């Protein structure tokens, strides 16, 4: 294989990596927020349920979770997951649930770090709980959680390689296949460069976002 052939192959894998990354991010943020709200709920059963869920998901390997989602339906429900889109879907679900739990803890920490005074100021001004959350608290939380979220987001880019346990289309899997077939090592490092550049891009973007919120202090 020529350098250009390898590049095209890897780019093909990179598209799937990006897809897993993007779908997971978009799904895990709202889901994580729900889990965070549940773990802060005064309603005990919901609170226990959410915290227990986070405990299980954070306490077991992501790879195991991917396997459960990819093979579980076939084993226990009689709905085998066979096609690549189906496999990708289940992988994205597993990733989303896993990352939602990590995100939820970041969100919870962020929300709980906002001083009680902000809520009280909103209350005495006759604002509703909803208005206080969306108009006062949320942006402050976002500012607070950008650094830890950046960490998770960058980790997610690399964790997509774990998809290879069930579906063989992502960047890292393609690189491994090339290494096995061609008996050369450098495509692996070349794939590493893809991750590195993409994460560099994300770091710059997240840094910009952080800068944009520098006009106020919390």
């Amino acid at each position: 294989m020529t350098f250009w052939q390898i590049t095209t192959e890897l780019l093909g894998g990179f598209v799937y990596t990006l897809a897993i990354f993007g779908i997971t991010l978009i799904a895990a943020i709202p889901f994580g927020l729900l889990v965070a709200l549940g773990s802060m709920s005064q309603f005990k059963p919901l609170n226990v349920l959410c915290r227990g869920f986070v405990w299980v998901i954070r306490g077991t390997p992501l790879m195991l979770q991917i396997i459960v989602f990819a093979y579980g339906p076939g084993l226990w429900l009689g709905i085998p997951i066979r096609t690549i889109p189906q496999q990708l879907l289940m992988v994205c679900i597993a990733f989303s649930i896993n990352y939602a739990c990590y995100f939820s803890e970041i969100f919870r920490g962020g929300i709980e770090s906002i001083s009680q005074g902000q809520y009280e100021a909103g209350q005495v001004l006759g604002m509703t709980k909803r208005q206080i959350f969306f108009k006062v608290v949320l942006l402050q939380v976002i500012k607070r959680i950008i650094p830890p979220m950046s960490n998770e987001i960058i980790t997610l880019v690399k964790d997509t390689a774990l998809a290879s346990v069930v579906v063989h289309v992502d960047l890292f899997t393609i690189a491994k296949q090339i290494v096995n077939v061609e008996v050369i090592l450098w495509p692996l490092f070349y794939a590493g460069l893809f991750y590195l550049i993409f994460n560099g891009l994300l770091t710059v973007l997240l840094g910009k976002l952080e800068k944009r919120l520098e006009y106020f202090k919390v």
Partner: protein
Amino acid sequence: MAFLEIKNIKKSFGSTEVLKGIDFEVEKGKVLVIIGSSGSGKTTLLRCINFLETPDEGEILVGGDPVLDAASREGRLSDEELRRRRLHFGLVFQSFNLFPQYTAKGNLTLAATLQAKERLKAQGLHKNRQAVAEEMQKLSDKADGVLARMGLTEKAEFYPCQLSGGQCQRVAIGRALMLDPEVLCFDEPTSALDPELTGEVLRVIKSLKDQEQRTMIIVTHEMEFARNVADKVIFMADGVIEEEGTPEEVFGNPQSEKTKAFLAHDK
């Protein structure tokens, strides 16, 4: 009948009784100053009046209308009703609690804007661009007026982190004024400030009395200011009103031993 009547307010936290039955009245346009050592229940009292704490017992009436009645079994108020009732009062916090992501003017207009929008929606006018624009312009003008009274015209577009403590507290006072509360409460408004910044805040509060005849309840440790601004002074100790009277009476001729000790210590 007084404008604001506070009747037998009691509040406990766990087994600690913080307020043991507080009664007082404030006439319209008058200033009540509450003094007392920390832990005497002053702040809890203000928080009860502003619905940040729910008293275990007692009543609050504004203009003869019951605003809060702990004994009534009408059940918990709806959020809507609670919001409506708490707007009788405004509260300025010790630590300002400004919204950091809004400018000075944004802090003033935020709640007022949300309420104006709700009002327009109730009238079915929220889709009428002109009505909305007019309402927003009115609020903006009002905020400019309030900022001018606070001496903050030049700081309208500044964020709280760019303002001094004294300026922040004046923004906070302006924010409370924007909603036209019938009774404006201050919880140690200068305690978080450097000594050289207290003057500007105290002057603004004094001007609310002199120029606008605002009804106010002020919890403070600034005795000179209290004497200067108060129509009536209450000295609180251990959750009860130990002494009350005109500033001349309380400061000039205290009757209670506790008041004497407190005032002597303060000098």
